[in-house]
């Protein structure tokens, strides 16, 4: 240990400076390496192919349809992504939708103004999220168990509150509710200003776009998001370095419930009715969308873009198969195969192609 200060002189910081500036990947390389990018490519190819194959696919009307149909799933996907990043899961989103719709629907049938009804719905939904968050974050229970419990509880609450009725006589504010759920923008001539060939996009879609932009911004620019990722990467380390782990996790579940509530209210407005079965089974679709978009169930990775693109991909496949007139019995097989293929495509960029994998299968293996 004969070291001394003079070393510094001999080589100086400059030489270390040379090194610290290096980036292992440029932003472009990172993008190309991401699964969402490749699923996006697959989606694009599918859209081009379908437009060529089936003229009714590429119409403005169908575009309006598709963009509206996947928006609620994508909106929930944004919330789910936040939860998945922390290493958790939220199985209750579908049931929360049902509860929110019933709470808002009840108030509407009692002739309350729409904002009161929507506010109450949001509150009910976020209360479910707070319940989940409390037991997961502060009590430390596994998220799968807590949100599975909530899946049952919220659905049951919806059934009880609705008295098993479909609610649809929405009182004076019914037109506003309907307008919220069915609004489109931009409007075609003559009502509006845009020509026929530009699709009218639903309020669902625009809400999704705005939420995705906000979530994307948050993910990139805020300390909160950095804490989310740190928790998913190494919860213990995050705790030791002073990240408010419990609070952040709690907020993640509340946010997930919030997005489920928004989706529910949009669908409520769109369908003009509240049914306690709304959202049944959506949890799997939402998780599927986000995972196809590249979110990691083990935590630590996920993007807003991925949540949107994954949901869009699922919906476009469904729509495309119908448009192509594929026998309905076979559609499930195609959907399944496409899901696997899209993700497989995305994987080829992690440095290893399918061919190489097959070649090396019984010899060399990726990590």
């Amino acid at each position, binding site marked *: 240990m004969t070291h001394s200060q003079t070393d510094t002189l001999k080589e100086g910081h400059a030489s270390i400076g040379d090194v610290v500036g290096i980036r292992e990947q440029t932003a472009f390389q990172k993008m190309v390496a991401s699964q969402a990018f490749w699923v996006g490519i697959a989606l694009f190819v599918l859209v081009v192919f379908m437009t060529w194959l089936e003229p*009714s696919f590429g119409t403005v009307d*169908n575009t309006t*349809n598709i963009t509206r149909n996947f928006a609620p799933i994508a909106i929930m996907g944004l919330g789910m992504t936040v939860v998945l990043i922390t290493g958790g899961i939220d199985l209750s989103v579908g049931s929360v939708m049902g509860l929110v719709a019933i709470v808002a629907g009840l108030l509407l049938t009692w002739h309350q103004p729409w904002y009161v009804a929507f506010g109450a719905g949001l509150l009910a939904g976020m209360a479910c999220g707070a319940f989940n968050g409390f037991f997961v974050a502060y009590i430390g229970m596994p998220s799968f168990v807590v949100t599975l419990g909530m899946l049952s509880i919220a659905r049951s609450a919806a059934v009880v509150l609705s008295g098993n009725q479909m609610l649809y006589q929405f009182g004076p504010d019914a037109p506003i509710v309907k307008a919220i759920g069915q609004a489109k923008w931009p409007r075609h001539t003559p009502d509006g200003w845009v020509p026929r060939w530009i699709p009218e996009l639903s309020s669902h879609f625009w809400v999704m776009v705005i939420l995705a932009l906000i979530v994307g911004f948050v993910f990139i620019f805020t300390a909160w998001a950095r804490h989310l990722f740190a928790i998913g990467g190494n919860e213990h380390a995050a705790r030791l370095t002073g990240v408010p782990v419990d609070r952040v996790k709690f907020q993640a579940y509340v946010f997930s419930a919030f997005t489920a509530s928004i989706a529910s209210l949009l669908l409520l407005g769109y369908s003009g009715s509240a*049914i306690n079965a*709304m959202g049944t089974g959506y949890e799997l679709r939402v998780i599927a969308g986000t995972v196809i978009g590249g979110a990691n169930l083990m935590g630590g990775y996920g993007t807003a873009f991925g949540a949107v693109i994954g949901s869009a991909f699922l919906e476009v496949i469904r*729509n495309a198969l*119908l448009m192509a007139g594929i026998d309905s019995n076979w559609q499930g097989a195609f959907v399944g195969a496409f899901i696997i293929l899209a993700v497989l495509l995305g994987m080829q960029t992690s440095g290893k192609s399918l061919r190489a994998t097959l070649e090396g299968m019984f010899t060399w293996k990726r990590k």
Partner: protein
Amino acid sequence: QEKYTFALVPKNMNNPFFDQARDGCKKAEAEANGAFECMYIGPGEHGGGEEQVQIVQDLVAKKVDGIAVAPSNAAAMAVALEAAKEAGIPVLTWDSDVLPENKDLRVAYVGTHNYEIGVNLAKIVQTIKPSGGTICIQSGGAAAANHNERMKGIRDTLAGKESAASPGDALTGQNGWTEAPGCPLYTNDDFPLSVQQFQDFMAKTPNLDAFVPTGGFPQFIPDANRAAVEPYKDKIASKALALVVADTLPVQMDQMKEGLSLGQVGQRPFEMGYKTMLALKDMKDGKPAPADPTYTGLDVCTPETADTCIAK
């Protein structure tokens, strides 16, 4: 002449009931000698009905030539049907209908009078148990409008008085009829669960007077149902237990003949699929639209009439 595409949209595709409608649809297609194609498509599972609305929207965007749909969520379906109307696509409803205020969105309803199923189920129960007793109704889903209608039919008939809205007012002694605690039971279309519920329930309430599923669920897994009902066969034979079930699929009729039920009230899904297709074809050809509603009729069966009750 161009070939039409008519879509037949069921509530869900994993129920043998709707398979029959599909068979009817396919038969009509075959008989039309290539004049139209039957496109059978619906959501995999029942759920809240949003997915079904999406599918109808897709069909409108695809510009099919006619749609026959069995709405899960009647109110929500109105939105899609409005789009169909705008696009000039003729629509029929079958199996279940849209809300009364949206009747103008479809040409006609072709299907069962669901309330009547309930009424007929109840009538069979009443002949077996004229003085009333405890009853348990087993339904499909808490939000299923058709099942709720049937439940209302049962309740109203037994109570002898009409209730304001489906699924009707629970029986609490009207006309001597009381619903057992914990009832109605909801199967959510899970067939094994429906058998489990029957077993559990009978274990708890061996002296139950009537058990009435508003759909065929338990009988769709015949041997399990046999095993579950077998212990009560004597009670059924002696009419101590009025087990009366909705629907009359062949597998169900077999079970009634074996003495595992005292009555079946069936619909004619095959005919729904068949008739809607023919009606759509007629409308396209400029012939008059079917009457609204067009009831496909019910088959009311008891062990005595088992071989003759089903209209062919």
